């Protein structure tokens, strides 16, 4: 279900939900939750199953219960589009969870910051801590290791007998780790690793390092 790795002498735990936990800081990192996406589609007449809405909140509860973090950092695209009724579900979840939340705003986060303020959620474009830089878009900055989202990375595996398989993944390069999209109904983008990159694929119950050959 999880996999422990070390970055800049800090311990991080990769969770198969797509969440990342920074052990020393007791910080839970979640990227691209895209809450409200299903409701947005439904509001415009596309009948995406409602059950998906609940699943996102169930997953959020699961990782919070598992890690028991001191703070939660959303690395952007927390809410998919403009305000809709899913906001109230989110509001209930925030109140129930009662853990400080910081949002690193992404391209989809277009809801009025005042609404986040009401929930005591702090919004920022980036966050720096102990040589780690949190952003939504992947960014290379001198002297920092970047944790980010936006891409919804997936990896394509190939095997003997011409098998192939696509998995969402954590994608680590020299000074960067791109988190997979946490939300259900979000889709993926297949990226091609280069020499020196590390990829951790996620399945319904595991996180596995992927062997890359060139």
């Amino acid at each position, binding site marked *: 279900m999880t996999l422990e790795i070390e970055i800049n002498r800090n311990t991080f735990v990769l969770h198969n939900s797509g969440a990342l936990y920074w052990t020393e800081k007791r910080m839970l990192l979640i990227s691209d939750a895209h809450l409200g996406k299903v409701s947005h589609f439904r509001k*415009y*007449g596309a009948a995406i*199953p*409602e059950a998906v809405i609940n699943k996102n909140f169930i997953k959020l509860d699961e990782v919070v219960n598992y890690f028991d973090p001191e703070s939660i950092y959303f690395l952007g695209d927390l809410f998919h589009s403009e305000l809709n009724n899913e906001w109230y579900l989110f509001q209930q979840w925030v109140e129930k969870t009662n853990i400080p939340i910081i949002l690193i705003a992404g391209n*989809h986060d277009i809801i009025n910051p005042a609404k986040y303020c009401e929930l005591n959620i702090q919004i920022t474009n980036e966050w720096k801590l102990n040589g780690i830089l949190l952003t939504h878009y992947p960014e290379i900055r001198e002297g920092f290791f970047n944790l980010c989202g936006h891409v919804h990375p997936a990896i394509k595996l190939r095997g003997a007998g011409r098998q192939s398989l696509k998995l969402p993944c954590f994608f680590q390069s020299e000074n960067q780790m791109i988190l997979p999209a946490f939300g259900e109904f979000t889709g993926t983008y297949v990226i091609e690793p280069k020499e020196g990159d590390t990829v951790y694929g996620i*399945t319904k119950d595991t996180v596995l390092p992927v062997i890359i050959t060139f």
Partner: protein
Amino acid sequence: MKREELFDIATNWFTGRGWKPFPFQTQTWTAFLQGKNGLLNAPTGSGKTYALWIPVILDYIKSNPNYKNKHKPGLKAIWITPLRALSTEIKQAAERVADDLETGLKVGVRTGDTSASERSKQKNKMPDLLITTPESMQLMLASKGYESVFKTCGAIIIDEWHELLGTKRGVQVELALSRLKHINPQLRIWGISATIGNLKQALEVLLGTKSPALQNSVMIRAHINKKINVISVIPEKMDTYPWRGHMGLHLVDEVANIIRKSKTTLIFCNTRSQCELWFQALLTKYPEFAGELAMHHGSIARETRQWVEQAIRDEQLRAVVCTSSLDLGVDFAPVETVVQIGGPKGVARFLQRAGRSGHQPGQESNIYFLATHAIELVEASALRRAVKETVVEDRVPYLNSWDVLIQYLVTLAVSDGFYPTDVFKEIQDTFCYQGITAAEWQFCLNFITRGSQSLQAYDEYKKVEIEADGKFKVNSKTTALRHRMQIGTIVGDSVMNVKFLGGGYIGSIEEWFVSKLSPGDIFIFAGRKLELIRIRNMEVIVRMANPGVKAVHASWMGGRLTLSSQMSELIREELYDANTESMSRELRSLEPMFTRQRKESIVPTDNQFLIETFKTREGYHAIFYPFEGRYVHEALASVMAYRISLLSPITFSLAYNDYGFELLSDKEIDMQQVLDNNLFTPLHLHTDLQQSLNATEMARRKFRDIAVIAGLVFTGYPGKNVKTKHLQSSSQLIFEVFRDYEPNNLLFQQAYRETFEHQLEEGRLILALERIQNQEVVWKQCEKPTPFSFPIITDRLRERLSSETLAERIKKMTANYMK
């Protein structure tokens, strides 16, 4: 006016043009004037247009004796054609009759190409005779006050019904007719169809299974027998034949000779990429053809296609390389010769293409067949027999297409609204929905009003509202607008428009092909070498590339054809002949290949079922040869893979073509166990099919158009980018959420049903397995790939089936990026 007098008017008009009406034409006139509905079975270019325009006009004359002086306003007849490109031709024919007989009747066209101003003019004053497409017909049902427009319409003619039958556009027509019949109970409904195996059923689908219209109907057959000559192009030396690929391009000289010998030649290819390749190959080798050689396929800009069609008629072209885009419709009188490149996969299609040539009465049709790989030559001699015996395929109509019904219900809600009890009665009369249950009907109503079956407090689903008096209605203007745009959307692979940097639309290519390109890459499309500059907003911006540079040909996923069951049977019989003395010219020319095949394996006879196994660098191959066509093999491959995987954990990659299928694995299959366990049994076939992962993959693909038609995916209007901010999602993703969260959704289940009925052809599958049961299984362990196996094992489009766990598989796999 008596019928004799009316007939005199028509016959005189024919005589005035130096023509004489065919018996099928007068039979149709009679039946129509008697108030009957019907189906006219007549090929393209036989005069079928006048078989129906004439009685429409005679009927007007009959009920308005004072027709020359006094015009009666209102729509009188609708002519539905599947291709808007054909509308001009049909309009000209109608105008010729209407004007010559001084009826004062106006003919109008309404298709996706009709301007907005023209459409609103039509709304105020409908033409007397209207030519339109199934999509535009739906759009008219989506506009307010449509009932009063159609009230006066006394006849509707569905042209090329065989093309629509067995498609969802055909279902759209069924639904539109169910509505029109109730608006005007006097409506006469006529279909025109080329020869297909199930003509009687075609009539039933057109008029409605339980409808009074069917009671009052006739079938009229044209019986025009034209001699068709099938000529195989066989090279002198057989070893010049590739086992696979190369698209038969080595025969380019032979094709050039054929072109030189006749006025105009149509060269039919099975795929658009093949079309591009041949066009290029001919021009490169024979630059003198420049200006006289053109290309025509569905992804080329409409203006260009129209220009090509006109140029054929005007005898400006020596040859046109084309795809099924030229299968239909208009007459191209100058065409003398047709070349078919690659197996046409079906007899009906082949006959239709052959019929493209020699349109003058008494002329014979000449069709040259050019195999693209060796085994395909067997198809040529099979086709000759098919032509002789007129074996023709069925077109299988759809049943219970919930996606189309949902779209139709929203359409009615968008215009004037509807009351469910009325519409339910109407659709129960159709062929497609003859078996609809009350629960299924309720599902459709719930889907459009609540977005699912349950309703949660916070839900904001919005589409169709139920008004106080029970009327289902769309009141939001934006919902209505979005729905209207969706109706006309052509379902298919996601396509992107190709444009020049300075503007100028060239055509469209599929997204997956574009995604493989990076800026600076050169590709060949619409006969030109183009350099990719950038991709933006679903547009591919290009500039002309240096003609000398290397380039890749654009390719398309869609349009892979499969052998019909009739064709497969003919091919099997033909191939069995390879073991006898009575071999056709084509088979004899294949002798070197058969010799080579026999070295390692056998050429099966009619009581043998051949299996070959061998090992290559790629793994362990097992090839099975049922000769049943691609779709049946796709299903058989997945069933066999599934059944074998139950014996021990194993992962397969599957490949198939029209002749056989392959199971490829990283470990050896215990074939003796396969035979001992009788894994070819037809028992439990349905469950095994459902269990095999492959069915999911196929259903996922089927779901794509279901999602678009049912309004789950937002598409823009073709060619125009409509902002659907934050509403973009792939149908694949939607398929997955339905699978995980709402598996009982009828649309999701429809994807599986379509897979089983239309793609896997379960009925054919059972027959195939029963046949294999009665054959002797011959298992050959070969040292290396045989000639029969080669086209299959080199196929790159593959499916996968596994009984190993995901984690086990991942451990064995790698993300390999070696280019």
